[in-house]
């Protein structure tokens, strides 16, 4: 029997307030590798990630990770969310945040101990932040903050990582560090799925990509998928039909 796919979206539909934002996505991704999810703003790329992680309810279809539903394999899945989701004024240090990645393994009510600190320190070294471990997170640059999130995900010691726009607003040096870490993860046999906004760097960084604009336009090896025709269909696509239909569905009525 063939090994199950690392990520499998089957007929996935997600709706916000009754209005579908992702229509019937069918996509499989295999480990190891660095996989990109590309598309215009508002295309539902982050939503796809959140659906995989169980952060938004599904209006239809399913997601399987390593052939199983999410709850059975959470230990193996790491998450790096967008930077805006967090209040950087929160009185915690870099080390405190990275330790949060070890919490799932600790379980309820146990405090992090020497083993967890060792793991956290190792992850901080991997992203080049070992010297700021004691600093409050508000005192970091944008690139450093992103690396803290990455270190936290690394501390989860997962096999599959989802990253949501990890390179947005990040300085060049941090970008390189982050990408180097992702490449190491690929060498270790893991899968990294990245929502990415920049077409130009997509070609050099990703092994395979999926083009998303409220529905899956195309998916496969980067060079084969990033053709002018596909890009046109993604970035200048027939959104108005989907928009009108979305409105009608939300109201429970018919379109014109």
């Amino acid at each position: 029997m063939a090994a199950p796919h690392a990520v499998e979206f089957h007929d996935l539909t997600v709706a916000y307030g009754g209005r579908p934002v992702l229509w019937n996505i069918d996509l499989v991704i295999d480990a190891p590798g660095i996989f990109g999810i590309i598309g215009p703003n508002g295309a539902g790329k982050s939503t796809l990630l959140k659906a995989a992680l169980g952060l938004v309810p599904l209006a239809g279809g399913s997601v399987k990770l390593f052939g199983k539903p999410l709850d059975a394999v959470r230990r193996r899945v790491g998450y790096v969310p967008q930077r805006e989701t967090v209040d950087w004024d929160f009185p915690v240090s870099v080390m405190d945040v990275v330790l949060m990645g070890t919490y799932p393994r600790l379980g309820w009510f146990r405090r992090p101990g020497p083993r967890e600190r060792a793991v956290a320190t190792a992850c901080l070294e991997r992203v080049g932040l070992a010297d700021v471990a004691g600093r409050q997170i508000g005192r970091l640059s944008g690139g450093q903050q992103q690396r803290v999130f990455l270190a936290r995900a690394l501390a989860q010691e997962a096999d599959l990582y989802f990253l949501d726009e990890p390179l947005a607003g990040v300085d060049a040096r941090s970008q390189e560090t982050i990408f180097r870490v992702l490449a190491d993860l690929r060498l270790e046999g893991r899968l990294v799925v990245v929502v990415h906004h920049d077409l130009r760097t997509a070609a050099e960084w990703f092994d395979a990509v999926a083009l998303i604009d409220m529905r899956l336009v195309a998916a496969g090896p980067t060079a084969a998928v990033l053709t002018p025709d596909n890009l046109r269909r993604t970035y200048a696509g027939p959104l108005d039909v989907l928009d009108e239909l979305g409105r009608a569905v939300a109201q429970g009525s018919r379109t014109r």
Partner: protein
Amino acid sequence: MIIANGWLSEQAVMHAWAMATAAVVSAGCGLVGTLLVVRRMSLLGDAISHAVLPGIVVAVLAGGRLGGPIVLAGATVTALFTVWLTRSLAGRRGVAEDAASGIVFTTLFAVGVVLVSALASRVDLDASCVLHGILELVPFDTVPLAGFEIPRAFLTGAIVLAALLAMAVLTWKEQLFAAFDTDAARAAGMPVGLATTGLLAATALATVASFEAVGAILVVAMLVVPAATAELLVHRLHSMALVAVLVAVVASCIGYLAAWHFNTSAAGMIAVVLGLGYLAAALSAPDGVVARLAARGRLAWRVTCEDCLAALWRGEEAGAAAALPPAVFPRALGQHAALLWLRASGRITTASDGGWRLSTRGRAEAETVVRSHRLWEAWLGRHAELPLDHLHPPAEWIEHHLGAAVRERLEAEVGVAASDPHGRTIPPERK
């Protein structure tokens, strides 16, 4: 007794004045509250209504009369001070906007209560008046005007209402624009800061005018609830203001009478009546709870009927007996009811072998559904990467939401004589 000796009894007149005062001050609050709610400044209204207390006390100490100009001025100054202090604190570590507001207004309110209690002998206020007003006693404190004895609180309320109306009329455009899109208004050169300051001053005025009637805390209810109720019922800003004022006045009268009947606090009762009004609006509004549940029910019914029709049509196309969509209880019940209704409305008939047949009318409707289904499959197949067997489920769902105009556009793309990805013909549009 309402009528005595042919005229309204003195008691009735007192009650009328109390109600009139409540109506007049709540009208002002409803008007100001509309702008507060729309600009998401409801909690600022909460803050100002608490924080003006020390300003009022100090003004009364300085010789002002409750409802006189000194007190109105003192309250306005305190209100602006409150906002300034909140804004200054809000930038600090760990102090978000709402926390800053909470810190400032509880502190100022505490200062006010301490002042009132400590200076009780010198100041014509007491703590319970502060908390819930003394509407019942308002008619007994009168001033002579044009030969009549008018309650002072009513007079203040009427003057403030007139001032608020004038402010509203004069600055309506600016307030509207600032409420709708503050940044765009600023960029367009509108005096947004001035409009906001004016709104805050208006809130302070409305609060002070209501002070004797309902006290510091229930003013919040009068500011926010009528406007929130109006927001559920209408959509244009000036209609909202009108409805809010209407709701406020009606609730004040009903609340006062109910309090009289149940022998309890008028201010509290007014707030309760406002709450009931809000509940009624939430349930019965065009997009309220009842309407939404009804819409869901209607959709489920329409889907069941259309699915039955489409199944019968597909049976006809295949030349075999129709297979209705499988359904277990309770769906089966709905399906059975749908079939009965379809027969009663002439869309299907019972055949001699006990099965169902489509009438002409039913066939036309069924074809529309199947057409929507297959058009969507064809269109989706072109635009999305989906294996063939994944096209049917989305179409099953979308077929109920496609209208004629969108179908035309879909057909324009996939071609008039096209078939769906499974090779089946797409029925033409029935005119």
